[in-house]
């Protein structure tokens, strides 16, 4: 059992193994791995304001993917951790990656949730993220690394309803004599 990750950021390989351990065999492929990794990592950043893993994410035509995922997976295959079969990924090393309970409680439901989506749904979801759209300049520029701080823009992660609590008295009237342009 790999216990090196408890209480600290997962390395990319451990994160990949953690996800693969939780995917149904028919969904264990490049597509699900990359989309789920991106969504889980960015959801974690969004809520916890810290990185989940050392993985970087590149914005390519197929959407956000783990940067250099092909090389990483081939390297893992060479070390008999996984077996690549076309787009499919078979897990050979069944040793679980151990993480803290707090972490598993957060990410396991997300892995379950996103693995229930179809390829098309995951594509639509990840392509529509601000992180992807900003990095690709609305899908014009491909190949750049997505800044994880952009996860803060992904308010869709937070789907709870919340009512406004600011009372009327707190909202100012406009004083046109004192208007000033906002400077970026």
């Amino acid at each position, binding site marked *: 059992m790999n216990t090196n990750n408890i209480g600290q950021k997962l390395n990319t390989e451990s994160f990949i193994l953690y996800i693969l351990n939780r995917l149904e065999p028919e969904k264990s492929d490049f597509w699900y791995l990359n989309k789920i990794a991106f969504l889980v990592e960015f959801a974690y950043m969004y809520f916890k304001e810290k990185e989940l893993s050392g993985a970087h994410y590149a914005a390519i035509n197929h959407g956000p993917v783990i940067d250099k995922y092909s090389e990483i997976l081939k390297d893992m295959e060479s070390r008999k951790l996984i077996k690549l079969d076309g787009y499919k990924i078979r897990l050979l090393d069944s040793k679980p990656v151990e993480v803290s309970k707090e972490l598993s409680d957060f990410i396991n439901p997300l892995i379950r949730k996103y693995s229930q989506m179809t390829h098309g749904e995951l594509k639509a979801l990840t392509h529509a993220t601000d992180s992807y759209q900003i990095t690709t300049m609305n899908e014009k520029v491909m190949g750049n690394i997505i800044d994880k701080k952009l996860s803060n823009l992904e308010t869709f992660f937070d789907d709870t309803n919340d009512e406004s609590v*600011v009372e009327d008295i707190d*909202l100012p009237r406009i004083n046109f004599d004192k208007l*000033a342009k906002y400077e970026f």
Partner: protein
Amino acid sequence: MSSDIDGYKIYQEDRKFTRAVEKLPQFVQDVLKEKIRFLAENPYHNSLNTKSFNCSSKLRKELARDGVDDVREFYINAKKYRCVFYVLHAKKMIYLATVGLHDQLNRWSK
């Protein structure tokens, strides 16, 4: 850089809004700046997930006299921080009303 991005012009009262923003954590400031860019392009930009701000009809009428067509809000970060703004379509203007944590908004906006 000026706030004259094609679309709506962004205004505040003196530097009141900017001063409130400067009290926020740096990463929240960075995100807010990005969101205000979206706002300048389109106050109803999908990426902002704006929603109508829940205020009384009395206040809406008062603001309407200032030319305010809509009072809206968006969350900056994980619903901890939010920004309330007014939209004045005739002037193609957005007025940044207030920003902050739920329980701090009252203090900061006064």
